[in-house]
């Protein structure tokens, strides 16, 4: 596998979706290609920093308007 091939497969590699022979070929390339190793590691970190596993809070004013709209709709339905 050459560098272009690695870049094409990065997403599937990071998601663990590559067939074993392709993954092994890619990993063999990474053993000797510093640039591709850097791109793979940095792309993995990119996904990780954006992936949010923490609880986030809804701004109070947005929450108020949402529940107000919801109550009005629920009330309309029950009448």
């Amino acid at each position, binding site marked *: 596998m050459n560098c272009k091939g690695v870049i094409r497969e990065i997403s599937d590699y990071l998601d663990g979706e590559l067939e074993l022979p392709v993954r092994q070929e890619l990993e063999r390339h990474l053993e000797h290609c510093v640039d591709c190793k850097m791109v793979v590691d940095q792309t993995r970190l990119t996904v990780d920093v954006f992936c*949010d596993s923490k609880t986030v809070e809804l701004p109070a004013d947005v929450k108020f308007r*949402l*529940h107000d709209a919801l109550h009005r709709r629920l009330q309309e339905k029950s009448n």
Partner: protein
Amino acid sequence: MRPPIGLLMPLSATNPHRLPSSVARDDEHLLVAAAKRGDTHAFEELVNRYEAKIFRLTMNITRNREDAEDAMQDAFLKSYAHLKEFQEDSRFYTWLVRIAANEALMRLRKRRPNQFSLDEPIEGEEDLVPRELEDWGPSPEQRFAQSEMHEILSQVIDKLEPDFRVVFVLRDVEELSTEETAKALGISIPAVKSRLLRARLKLREKLNRYFRQGVAN
């Protein structure tokens, strides 16, 4: 003035690669069943549980607070109106994400009609060639305070083209599967994969400007 986003929370460097979504709790189906029977408190509990995540999703897609709020409200109201049609062949949260993503996309298309299309095929591989290859050093994200990191992520995702951003948000932030993302957006699985690859590479390149060694505070 653009409102603070503050919704993209970075993971710490010690976290392993992302885990499967644990957003939907085990009792979700009980709440859905009760809500279907007309229990409004059960539906409100579902809203309380997912409102922040759905707002983050609509905000990430539209990048406009007013549109994001409207899309979120309509998503919850529509999910309530159509709850009886929900077949429970997927999780309620996934179904809700699909509705919210469509509401957000509708507003994005209205606001930027010439900039956004998921229909256009992506051709060529020239854009796949990585540029700006520089060492980030160990744990580059830890060089920034949390508020700085939020600002960086917000700026970076803001600059990503909407058709790539939508796919990235559904797959990597909301953790939908490739199939769920394709279904939500009405595009093929290869189209999702192709856009996700490009989105990730483009974001890496944009983050490089902040993370390369020697740039941090």
